[in-house]
């Protein structure tokens, strides 16, 4: 897989922009009663949002392999951000943590299943994004030829 500087920049930017929805959904899945707005642990909504979050990576990336790597990248970035949010009381709010191993084990145990949803939804979203891009391009090409014929 060959990457140029633009590819890396694009993938990095998309990983950054698609990470917040992943982070929020993971955090919300852990604490649906205190998060705002809450998805109430509705896996269908989580799946739909993970499709939506992946649409730009398909739309802006011509190469399918890069689009799929972007899905992995933003899922990892989002999950890391979710762990940071989960640790907020002990890092930002200066509370004392009693059982850190248990605390994080609980988080991974509860949310690990979401990673499959994010990646699966991400792949579907990528394909959907590429389809949308191709449809728009097709329409544009058609319009260009139509304009040319008229002219």
């Amino acid at each position, binding site marked *: 897989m060959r990457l140029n*500087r*633009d590819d890396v*920049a*694009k993938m990095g*930017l998309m990983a950054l*922009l*698609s990470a*917040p*929805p992943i*982070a*929020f959904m993971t*955090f*919300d899945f852990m*604490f*649906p*009663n*205190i*998060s*705002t*707005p809450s998805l109430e642990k509705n896996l269908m909504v989580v799946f739909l949002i993970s499709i*939506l*979050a992946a649409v*730009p990576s398909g*739309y*802006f990336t011509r190469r399918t392999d890069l689009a799929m790597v972007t899905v992995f990248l933003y899922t990892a970035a989002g999950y890391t*951000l979710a762990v940071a*949010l*989960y640790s*907020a*009381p002990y890092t*930002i*709010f200066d*509370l004392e943590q009693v059982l850190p191993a248990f605390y994080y084990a*609980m988080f991974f145990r509860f949310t690990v299943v979401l990673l499959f949803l994010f990646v699966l939804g991400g792949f579907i979203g990528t394909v959907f994004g590429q389809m949308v891009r191709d449809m728009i391009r097709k329409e544009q090409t058609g319009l260009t030829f139509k304009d040319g014929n008229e002219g």
Partner: protein
Amino acid sequence: MAIFERVKKHWITVGMYIVFSLFFLSACIVSANTYGGVAQAQRDIVLESPVESADIVPHGDVNVSFSIQLHNPSRYTLHVYTLSWYAKLVNASSTSDRVIPVGEDYSGPTHYLEVPARTTLTYTFWNVVSDPETMEKLNGFINYSKSLGTDYTLETLPYEHSFSIIAMIGDFQHDYVREGYLNDLVTVELGYSTQEGIR
């Protein structure tokens, strides 16, 4: 860089993407802030200054009283679910009347008690023991103790008080059936007993 050219070209799509991302980023910040606030509330909401007393009132009855402060420095109102106080005298020498109840009080969820944010509330309970049967037991305990070499009066008897309060933080949902940890997250359970102190 070519990427900026493409951003310029697709500025509507990129703009929508940024708005989508910022929405979830704000939700993350708000939610993490709430989580921090709730965790701080769990740490900072405490019971303090318990005072136990017993006084002789007219007609020789005894007024057993107890007061304790609930300190809520958090930004959330506490909705009291249950609140209970129980006072007793333990008579270890008796086989039939080992526990002599001298006072009790209870408030359930239907009483809608609240502890506003950033306040300290003092709960005071009392009960005038005038029932001849109970007074007889208390005096019996005093006389029995005297025979063993310990001098008590109705005011100095070793009454044991126990107090407990269960309250919900804010208006967060707390009635999950399977996810008990979510209920625990927004529930404050505090108690006091003469023997164990504040817990």
